[in-house]
């Protein structure tokens, strides 16, 4: 029922210069690897990217950074990416650092028709500067507005042809909220199964949020291999 793209190139064909895109993943886990590579190849520029991290220097969103395709980055953590830190400190890239929970909630709110909400995170810090502060039950909270995107590029383990998605372990992270907050959500999945093959009680992302599917093998690079 949902379009299945024949290539990553086809999947990102409608993404134009200046687009706002959400990209799923935490570190390199759960990132839509092939969709990102397709954006690099397409050379689309002036992107506003909403993603918790910005990849590493040679993989994931780090590739878009290196090519200076990102105008503005909204995320919570840049620690692992030297080129990102360099572009931020030199002012080459605009960055909006957002507490991770606030980022997750802003994206959820965007997908859920909630334009703004109060949260304690960031009160008394630079994050709350210029924003409304209000007291509830004797504690201060800051008003944060929702985020939406033109496109959400996400990664799941399995999809059925309706577009229902199941994620693997901690590869879930930001993907389900981003699926809800993109005007167009494209899911890169490891496997597409027949409609009806997924248990409806275990669906993480219901099909209503998904506009297109791409089956693609994943490298799943490991950032910090740590063993016993």
């Amino acid at each position, binding site marked *: 029922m949902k379009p299945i793209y024949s290539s990553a190139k086809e999947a990102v064909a409608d993404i134009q210069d200046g687009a706002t895109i959400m990209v799923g993943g*935490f*570190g*390199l*886990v*759960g990132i839509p690897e092939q969709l990102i590579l397709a954006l690099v190849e397409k050379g689309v520029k002036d992107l506003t990217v909403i993603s*918790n991290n910005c990849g590493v220097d040679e993989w994931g969103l780090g590739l878009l950074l290196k090519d200076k395709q990102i105008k503005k980055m909204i*995320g*919570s*953590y*840049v*620690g*692992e990416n030297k080129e990102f*830190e360099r572009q*931020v*400190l030199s002012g080459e890239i605009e960055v909006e*650092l957002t*507490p*991770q*929970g*606030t*980022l*997750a*909630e802003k*994206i*959820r709110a965007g997908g859920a028709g909630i334009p703004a909400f109060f*949260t*304690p*995170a*960031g*009160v*008394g*810090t*630079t*994050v709350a500067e210029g924003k409304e502060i209000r007291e509830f039950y004797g504690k201060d909270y800051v008003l944060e507005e929702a985020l939406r995107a033109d496109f959400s590029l996400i990664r799941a*383990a399995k999809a059925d042809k309706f577009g229902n998605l199941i*994620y*693997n*372990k*901690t*590869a*879930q*992270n*930001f*993907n*389900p*909220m981003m699926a809800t907050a993109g005007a167009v959500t494209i899911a890169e999945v490891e496997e597409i199964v027949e409609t009806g093959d997924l248990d409806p009680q275990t669906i*993480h992302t219901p099909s209503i949020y998904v506009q297109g599917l791409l089956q693609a093998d994943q490298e*799943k*690079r*490991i*950032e*910090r*291999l*740590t*063993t*016993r």
Partner: protein
Amino acid sequence: MGKVNYRERIARRAEKEINDGDYVNLGIGMPTLVANYISEDKTVVLQSENGLLGIGPYPTEDEVDPDLINAGKETVTSIPGSAYFTSAESFAMIRGGHVDVAILGAMEVSEKGDLANWMIPGKMIKGMGGAMDLVHGAKKIIVIMDHVARDGSAKIKKECELPLTGKQVVHKIITERAAIDITPDGLELREVFEGFTIQDVIDSTEAPLIVKNVIENVK
């Protein structure tokens, strides 16, 4: 006692702040070490803000799953009774006051419990990650860190100079030298660790310390 052993001592002391049945979030770096010292008498469930409740030990080489990491991006395992969820759910848990203890690292802590641990203007930007949410959500916020910076300057200050992570959020500081509570009256020195004197701690702390009932020579 070398640096490595200091880290172990800090982690062992921090472990005492965790009760049986607690749900605990351990920050990146030294806080992660605390997991190694959790008493077998306690059932403790570790929360990872990237969407896992029930972090297990590091995997054997055969067990490594690239889709299973902790918030420090290290490959981990999960325990029986664990659950996976979204980042929104993870921070609902954190912000909603369901996590009993969060143990975090710090660059600076003020006598009021202000915490700075996410950037040095013009020099280093790591991002706040989940720290700004954690400091407002977990019921008890423990900071563990070196007592002084590499250049010997105090990290426990009257006021933080670095951009804050949160205001009046820290409940306890544990370093290689001391355990200090943040109270409404200021910093109260509770324990001084073996190898240091009360005076050592006072001298290496910029903020004034309340010294009333101090246990000394704690191992």
